[in-house]
């Protein structure tokens, strides 16, 4: 018989939906917020978009531990590089370092990543670094288990040179679509927009997201049913 502790002992995995898109003037990174251990949601409000430098952020998917440690290493390397260079690191260099760590340790790591940022030479750039440690510069990219449901969507909706507003709306819509279909993605939608003026974080709680086909309205908490008025006691 399967041990009843399977779920509790399973490694923390971020089922995840992560997205990175470029727009005219910068990039928008988006992600859901579910971290699961097996079927148990270990963290329903996690932040999967972490900072590498002032101008470069990374979306993490796959093993939570692996992606966190990898990000820590790359942040450390980039910090040294920035000091040596005397100016902010480029997105390309950040992505290359992520790729090097990912590739050189491919036997031990299980994490798909999206690196996005803005630098003064190339502007906004997105790099996808899937499981084996490939490095691919793309105008947009999607990752994580929830991304399977978004390929057709992006094929239809993607266009070059969107405005910041269009891009942010696209990312939020896409993540919420994936959350609707992928059991391993859920919670809230977080976005990070990076351009020449800096970084701006946005947060979209579950109840602000549109409801898709056959979705039921989310309940904030089961405790809400407790605060509802209780039925009158029956009197004979």
């Amino acid at each position, binding site marked *: 018989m399967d041990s009843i502790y399977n779920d509790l002992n399973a490694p923390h995995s971020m089922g995840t939906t992560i997205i990175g898109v470029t727009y005219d003037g910068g990039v928008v990174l988006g992600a859901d917020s579910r971290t699961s251990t097996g079927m148990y949601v270990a963290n329903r409000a996690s932040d999967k978009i972490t900072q590498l430098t002032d101008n470069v952020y990374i979306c993490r998917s796959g093993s939570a531990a692996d992606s966190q440690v990898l990000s820590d290493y790359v942040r450390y390397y980039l910090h040294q*590089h920035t000091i*040596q260079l005397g100016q902010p690191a*480029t997105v390309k260099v950040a992505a*290359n*370092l992520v*790729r090097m760590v990912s590739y*050189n340790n491919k036997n031990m790591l299980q994490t798909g990543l999206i690196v996005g940022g803005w630098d003064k030479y190339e502007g906004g750039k997105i790099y996808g670094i899937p499981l084996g440690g490939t490095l691919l510069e793309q105008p947009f990219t999607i990752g994580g288990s929830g991304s399977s449901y978004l390929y057709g969507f992006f094929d239809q909706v993607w266009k070059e040179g969107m405005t910041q507003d269009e891009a942010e709306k696209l990312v939020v819509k896409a993540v919420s679509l994936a959350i609707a279909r992928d059991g391993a993605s859920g919670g809230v939608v977080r976005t990070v927009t990076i351009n020449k003026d800096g970084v701006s974080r946005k947060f979209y709680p579950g109840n602000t997201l549109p409801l898709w086909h056959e979705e039921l309205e989310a309940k904030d908490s089961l405790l809400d049913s407790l605060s509802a008025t209780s039925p009158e006691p029956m009197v004979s």
Partner: protein
Amino acid sequence: MSSIGTGYDLSVTTFSPDGRVFQIEYAAKAVDNSGTVVAIKCKDGIVMGVEKLIASKMLLPGSNRRIHSVHRHSGMAVAGLAADGRQIVTRAKSEATNYEKFVSRHLSCKVPLVSVDTAEAGEFRVLRVYGEAIPVKELAERVASYVHLCTLYWWLRPFGCGVIVGGYDRDGPQLYMIEPSGISYRYFGAAIGKGRQAAKTEIEKLKLSEMTCRQGVIEVAKIIYGVHDEAKDKAFELEMSWVCDESNRQHQKVPENLLEEAKSAAKAALEEMDAD
């Protein structure tokens, strides 16, 4: 500013009472005795030229290059002891290549991402793979760091050569000069070697910010022909290179026809001066 440092000049790890390290100053003298090297930064690139003094008529023209390509986008002109210069160029090439992609000697072994780089601030562990061409500033700093390293230990002697690094990267064309002491400064125009004082005077007369590299090549040739001392050194060969928009930001020898044009313009300018 020469003074005898008797007693304090035997080792590079000894300071004199007035705070000088004489061995380094003596190393600089080795540079001062070599053929002139001139380099200028024009508005669209860098031009470098060397007065290559010919020691023997038996030498093949075009051999014993004094200007070397260090990377696609940058080159290095050497003055002083040639063998020392070769060492510095090799180091610079290696720094440039490894910055971009680390090449391991053994294909099967795991590529080390972090390597101990003794030239950088002691024994700091420095990351060496960045996936993009090394910025010229970074290259110059690393070469300077390496040259300086050799002035710190009693079992090493300082390099007897000065080096001019010219490159064109994403921040535009840049020119750096590195002296045997390990000092590295960024310049609009630089000269080292025998005729450096006269060359610097000539460079200062030029309007570099308005000059293209095509014009710069002619000017550098004129300067080198001008500072060449016919009486003391008989024959010399002019070696020139550039990295500019016209060369697609690649460091390369100045094309033959332009070089010939520059040489004849320089000779003509000389005759004009003599005629006065």
